[in-house]
Structure formats: structure tokens, C-alpha cells
């Protein structure tokens, strides 16, 4: 797939929904280590709602559809990652208003806006062991790939790899935000739960495009 067209959006979100249905228990367990065990439920509910919204508004402008998916996500899954992911989707959608399909350049725009939206809303700094530590290299990698005019599948491969590396790097960090922050040094060694979600998202996009 060289581009994700408007008509493919429902399929992409169906895939995201499936991935997060499958990862439900794993994310519950992971969030249980430094948090309140709800992350699997949050993401499962959120992507169900997002998929539903995309399906319902498939005829809309692509950017508007993504924006609506974000709103639906935030409504369905209140909580830190629910609100952040919803915000990210909404901002990503806004950045794509008027586009007809998503190539490498559009993916870069989407993830940049997603990342910035999360940064603005969550006020975390890089290195604080949050989802931002994984979002940031995703956006940067896609922007570089766009500058080099890489194919969409090549770009997403690189971004997914960068996300995996960044996620691994969160293990060494000490949590500063949210429920994990109370663990202080105890949080070292465990990968960030929100970062894991970001990695799963970009990897799901990669799989959808390359399959």
C-alpha cells in the first residue's frame, strides 16, 4: 500500500481496534506494575469507539473523520491515556483537514501534531518516562523519511523501529507523572505503559500498510 486512502481509514481503525483488543490483558498487566491496571480497558474501549466514529463518518473529510475519532476516543475512555490519545487523534486530524489520502508526508504531519498535542496537554518533558518519549522519535523519524521522500511502508518500518528502541529506553527512566510517579526509583526497569501504547499504534499502522 503506497498510501492510505480515505476509503482505507475504516480498515486501519478496524486493525487498531483488533490489536488493542488482543493486547487488552497484556496492557492491564503492564499498567498494574506501576499504575491502576486500567490501560488495557481504556485502549480497548477507546479504539472501539474511534472505529465506530470512523465508520459512521466515513464520507466526511479525512481530517474531520480523524478529529471525530479522537473526540469519540476521549469520551469513551476518560483517563490519562484516553484523553491524551483522544487529543492526539484530534490534533492529527486537524493537521490533515482537506487531504484525500495519507502518504509519508501526511503521516509525518499527523504524528507531529499528535506528539505536540500530547506534549501540550500533558506538560511532560522528554525523559519523564511517558508516552511522549516514544511519540517524539516517531514524529522525528517520519519527518526525516518525508524529507528523504521514503515510501510509506519504508517510513513506517523506520518509525516502528525507532519506537521500539525508544520504548526500550524508557526502562531506564524514573517516572515523573501520573500514578507511576509514586514508585520513584521502583519504576526503573519497567517500560512505560503509555509508551508501549504508542509503539503498538505505530506498529499496527506499519502492519496495516505493509501487509
Amino acid at each position: 500500500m503506497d498510501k492510505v486512502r480515505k476509503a482505507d481509514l475504516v480498515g486501519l481503525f478496524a486493525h487498531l481496534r483488533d490489536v488493542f483488543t488482543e493486547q487488552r490483558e497484556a496492557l492491564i498487566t503492564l499498567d498494574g506494575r506501576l499504575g491502576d491496571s486500567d490501560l488495557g480497558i481504556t485502549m480497548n474501549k477507546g479504539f472501539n469507539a474511534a472505529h465506530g466514529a470512523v465508520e459512521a463518518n466515513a464520507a466526511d473529510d479525512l481530517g474531520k473523520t480523524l478529529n471525530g475519532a479522537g473526540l469519540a476516543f476521549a469520551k469513551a475512555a476518560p483517563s490519562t491515556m484516553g484523553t491524551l490519545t483522544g487529543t492526539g487523534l484530534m490534533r492529527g486530524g486537524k493537521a490533515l483537514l482537506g487531504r484525500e489520502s495519507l502518504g509519508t508526508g501526511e503521516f509525518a504531519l499527523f504524528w507531529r501534531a499528535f506528539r505536540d498535542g500530547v506534549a501540550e496537554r500533558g506538560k511532560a518533558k522528554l525523559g519523564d518516562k511517558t508516552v511522549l518519549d516514544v511519540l517524539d522519535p516517531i514524529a522525528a523519524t517520519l519527518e526525516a523519511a518525508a524529507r528523504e521522500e521514503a515510501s510509506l511502508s519504508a517510513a513506517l518500518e523506520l518509525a516502528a523501529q525507532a519506537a521500539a528502541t525508544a520504548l526500550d529506553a524508557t526502562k531506564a527512566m524514573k517516572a515523573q507523572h501520573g500514578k507511576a510517579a509514586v514508585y520513584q526509583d521502583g519504576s526503573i526497569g519497567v517500560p512505560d505503559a503509555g509508551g508501549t501504547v504508542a509503539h503498538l499504534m505505530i506498529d499496527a499502522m506499519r502492519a496495516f500498510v505493509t501487509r
Partner: protein
Amino acid sequence: MKKFLNKAEDFVDEMLDGIYAAHPDKLRFVADDRRCLVTARPVSGKVGLVTGGGSGHLPLFLGYVGTGLLDGAAVGGVFQSPSADQAFEVTRAADQGAGVLYIYGNYTGDILTFDMAAEMADAEGIRVLSLVGNDDVASSPAGEEHKRRGVAGILFIYKAAGAAAAEGMNLDEVLRVAEKARANTRTMGVALSSCIVPEVGRATFSIGESDMEIGMGIHGEPGIRRGPLRPADEVVDEMLGPILGELSLAKGDSVAVLMNGLGGTPQEELYILYRRVAGVLAERGVSVRKTYVGEFATSMEMAGFSISIMRLDDELARLVAAQADSPFFAQHQG
């Protein structure tokens, strides 16, 4: 898990149905969503006060929606934030033309929710200010107050701001009062047993048969010291230390005191504990102008309690003493 409930996933919504059934003259909801709770007695032209947060802490948060108190609360799942659009719908209803002040606890999920709701309100031309409660001295050291959790002491902020708004102060003045209340309030808690989140079905944490944990949060966040339960007076002394230190209370000062049960601790014990608090304050020459003893911010069945103290000036003393009335909190003058 021994709880009176039907299905765990209906816990919050059925609780809310019960609340609306019990208090139809005082509480209602908007946006066709029972989690968007507002007062049934809005006051035109008054600054609106809105709170919200996870369920499982009754009477927090919605219990303080009432006359002389707050105007609305966005209700989340058990220990879960409400959504931004719920907070926004409550904001809309609470706005009586004089703007809205958010007062809520310092939890990431809630901050995100209310920040996003404030943006949505702003887009509709509703002026919103925010104040985040962070009274729990056990949750971060002095100097890092912005990282501290909000716990039972938020009642003092509600009470002062609620009375200020009822007196007719404008939004900036109400914020000033709320900030003063916050700056002068400190809380410490101790837990003896865990709560159980209905959808989880087992204890959030385990603790030894004769242990206590000083400084534990109201969701079971780790505290600062776990050890054998000590006699009541010693527990109080350990908890009062940091509170009195940070408020640097001196002879002649006035305070309000809140002895808050976390859910599983009998009121008899709260009074045994208060006896010591009163003794220590009297010894220091600090006079207690207002005392609350009971359950004001709980963690379902958790056994334990917290002490909150607010230092009073004349204005705060007047506002704390003012009439207030909600289904969960009634106070006549005097």
C-alpha cells in the same frame, strides 16, 4: 469481595440512580448523562464552582454540590477521571453568567480532563479558572507542593470558595479565596486496610495484620512509612508533626480541623483521635474555631483516617462558618 452491588460495571451508574432518587429536590443531571451532576437550585449571576474526579470517595466529590458550596461535579468511574466533555457539560450548566472556577485534585487524569474542558468552555465564551488541590504533605516534600496529591483538605477549599461565591464575590475574588484556603491547608493520612475496586474484585494492596501505613493515598498510593500500629495518641503525634511544621502554627493562631474517616474506621475512633489533636493544639495555644469529625473523603471500605488543618484569618473563619446545605453536608449558622 463482599460488596452490595449488582454488576460491577454498573456500580457507578446505579449509585448515581440511587442518589438522584434520594435527592430529587437538590440534585439533577444535564446532557442526558447522569455523570454530569449539577445542583437543582442554581443561583443566577453567581460564580459557578465545578469539581469532579473518580468515584469511590463519597461524599467526595459530588456530595459537595449544594447551597453555599459547589454547583456541579463531573463523575468518573471508580478511581477514574470523568471525560472532558462531561466536565464541559457540567461547566455549561454551572455558568450563571459570572464564569466558572474548577476545583479538583492533583491527579494527571483529572488535570487533562479539566484542561481540555476549559478549552472547550473557552471556545464557547465561558470564562474558566482552575485551582488544583494539593494538600497531602505525605505525597511530596516541601518545595515540591505542585506534585502533591489532593485529598480531604479540598473540603476547606470548597467550603471557603462556596461561601465566597454565595456572598457574591466575582470570579477573581473567589479564586483568591480558594488559593488562600489552599495555601493554608495541610493533610496527612494513615491507612490500616485496603479498599477493593469493584471491577477489580480484590484488595488494591495488602498490609500486615497489625500494620499501618502513614501517608498512604486515597487510591492506595504508597505512603512514607509502614510499621506496627501504635497507640492512637502516638499516631496522631506523628501525623501532626509535618502539618504543624508546614503551617508554622503559633500561639494565638486559629484553625479549622477536619478528622476524616477513610471509610472503614468507626466514628468512635475518630473522636479518640481528635481528643489528642485538640490536646496538642490547646497546648500550643492554637484555638480551634471549627471542627469536622466524620467521613468527608473516603476510599470505599479502607480503614484509616486523615487529619486536615486549615489556618484561619478572619475572612476564612467567616467563610468556613457560613451556612451550607447539600444532601451530604449540612451546616447551619453557629
